């Protein structure tokens, strides 16, 4: 049956479009990954990269944290994404306020908080209609929305196609140590279209970098947003024992 493979392709397309919309041209690779060292991924590397979205799903819940520059201000987010349920939740702190965010692939809600970290269980999860405010999740609207969509798209109930990753231009950028773990850093393919035979992707044009450990687990994601050359990094971690559930479906069932 075909749908998951289509869904995977679709997710990649959405991601590519979202990043294309918000990514300028001509940015240069960070100094930490000299473009001259980048090369096409090997079969083994493509297989590792292809399994990363599945391993998020397999893990269920991952911790996520990122700092974002937008509109002249900065914000910091710390929370979780539940890849089994397709739900994200956490605390966003900006210069002016702190609030809780709860989102899925379609909508994002906001809830006031004065807590130093996002409380669990999710407050007012059974009162989405009146205790939370929000609306459609629109990647073209802001860097934050793009980031939330991107985080949500990083789970899939089966692996991506490693051959497709190779043919569409995924790159090996380097090996690094991160928090005591050996990780391989990849540039995602510029789109889901196959490159011409013999061509390799331009490492300077990469807009997503995946930091993947030897078990296929994503430990960090770097993304270029909003047409800038700067990278925004998301740190992923284990979230043993955390369950977000799916308040959206629960609300639907209760209505």
């Amino acid at each position, binding site marked *: 049956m075909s*749908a*998951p*493979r*289509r869904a995977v392709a679709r997710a990649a397309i959405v991601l590519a479009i979202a990043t294309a919309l918000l990514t300028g041209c001509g940015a240069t690779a960070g100094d930490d990954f000299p473009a001259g060292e980048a090369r096409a991924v090997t079969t083994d590397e493509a297989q*590792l990269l292809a399994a990363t979205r599945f391993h998020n799903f397999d893990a269920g819940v991952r911790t996520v944290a990122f700092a974002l520059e937008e509109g002249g201000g900065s914000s910091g987010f710390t929370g979780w994404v539940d890849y089994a349920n397709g739900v994200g939740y956490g605390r966003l702190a900006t210069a002016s306020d702190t609030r809780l965010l709860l989102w899925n692939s379609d909508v994002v809600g906001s809830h006031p908080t004065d807590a130093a970290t996002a409380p669990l269980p999710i407050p007012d999860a059974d009162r989405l209609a009146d205790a939370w405010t929000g609306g459609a999740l629109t990647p073209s609207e802001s860097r934050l929305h793009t980031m939330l969509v991107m985080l949500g798209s990083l789970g899939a109930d*089966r692996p991506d196609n490693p051959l497709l990753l190779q*043919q569409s231009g995924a790159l090996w950028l380097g090996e690094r140590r991160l928090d005591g773990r050996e990780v391989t850093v990849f540039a995602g393919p510029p789109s889901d279209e196959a490159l011409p035979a013999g061509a390799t992707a331009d490492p300077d044009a990469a807009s997503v970098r995946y930091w993947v450990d030897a078990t*296929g687990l994503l430990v960090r994601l770097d993304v270029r947003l909003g047409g800038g050359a700067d990278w925004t990094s998301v740190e992923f971690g284990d979230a043993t024992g955390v369950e977000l559930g799916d308040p959206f479906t629960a*609300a639907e069932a209760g*209505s």
Partner: protein
Amino acid sequence: MPRRPRPHALARAVVAAVAVLGLLVGCTPAAPAPHGTGTSEIVHVPEDAPTISAAVDLVAPGGLVVVAPGTYPEQVLVSTPDVTIRGLDRNTTLIDAEGIRPYGIVAVADGVSIENLTVTRATFYGVLVTGMHDASGPGAHGDDGYTRLDTERFPPVQRFSIDHVTATNNGLYGIYAFDAQHGVIRDSYASGSADSGFYVGQCRGCDILVTGNVAENNAVGFENANASDSVVVVGNRFSGNRVGMTFLSNYQEALSPQRGNTVVGNLVTGNTASDSPAQAEGAFGIGIGVGAGTENLFARNLIAGNPSAGVVLSSTEDLAPVGNLFEGNVFADNGVDLANVASDRAPAVGNCLVGDAPRTLPEGLLEGCTPDTRQPSATRDTLPRLEVPPGVSFLRVAPPPAQPQLGDLDAPARRLPDAVAMPDIANVTLPTAELLADRARA
């Protein structure tokens, strides 16, 4: 805040072959005809070679690789003809892809036998027999890509045997024959597959026998896409999946439409497994999905306890379910027994029933089955509504019970016959609910 749109799972809960993406062939030249360079008649693992792959390099065409119990974290490609790979203990000789590697064992040469071992945790397929392979490795449906199978460039691999193989917790397919002819999948077991436990795809004049197998806790137990003519599916237990069996035609792969299978004496019951990966389109509680399958014979199968539908006929683009014959099946305790949700564009025609009249959707579905009479159809959303449990990671579906061993572990290697010895279908009887129950979960 707004709630998300209502999920369409129920609307999608009918098996339909929509837009399977094509095959990845790429631009690399076809590999030269497979041939072995090894010279050993028998290679023992680990005594003579530390890994199965190393043993395959050593074995001569027509030779035997004997694998001791143990866990083998490797990916085995068999390109030497007429080789037998045999585990000494089916339950403890494990090829483990560790949730990272795409396949466990792939045969691209003619005449390969794989028997008495377990293949687990492959991200794509546990066991694959395929005629499609090139410098970038083996290929099959499941590899999203751009180009359909070129049947002239990649002629079907000939003669294969998969016997007493257990395939568990594999990402797409457990045991998979693609672009292959003249083979047998026998007395094997598959669970925890995110697509299907067993799969036969893209062949004509296939001459493939699927018999004595158990598939459970898969998204789909047995799947056929564009595999036609002499595919004989007899005496299997395809129960306790989300969907028991599917017979699919689509344009995105070569050799459409699917036609002419013989499906007799199978147990297709209780396809309501919650400890299983989600089916691609959210299907659940369905016995047999015929997605534009044509001219198949379904006889003396026990199709029961599938709360959505026993059988669902549907169409794909302009491909219609046509000319399927249901004869002497027993339907019981299904949501509806036989449903037709084919589209106006590709309406069901000439699907006939012989034997007890089941409850159909719509009523009167089977009153006219002449070749020129369009059969009445219902919409998918009129099928019984079910609560579909969330899908489980294919790596986390519980392991199966121990499976029986191959009879003669000392048998010499053999050349497989050019044509499969098919069972006498007339002698295949309706199974009871106990068919192969000793190999299934409680």
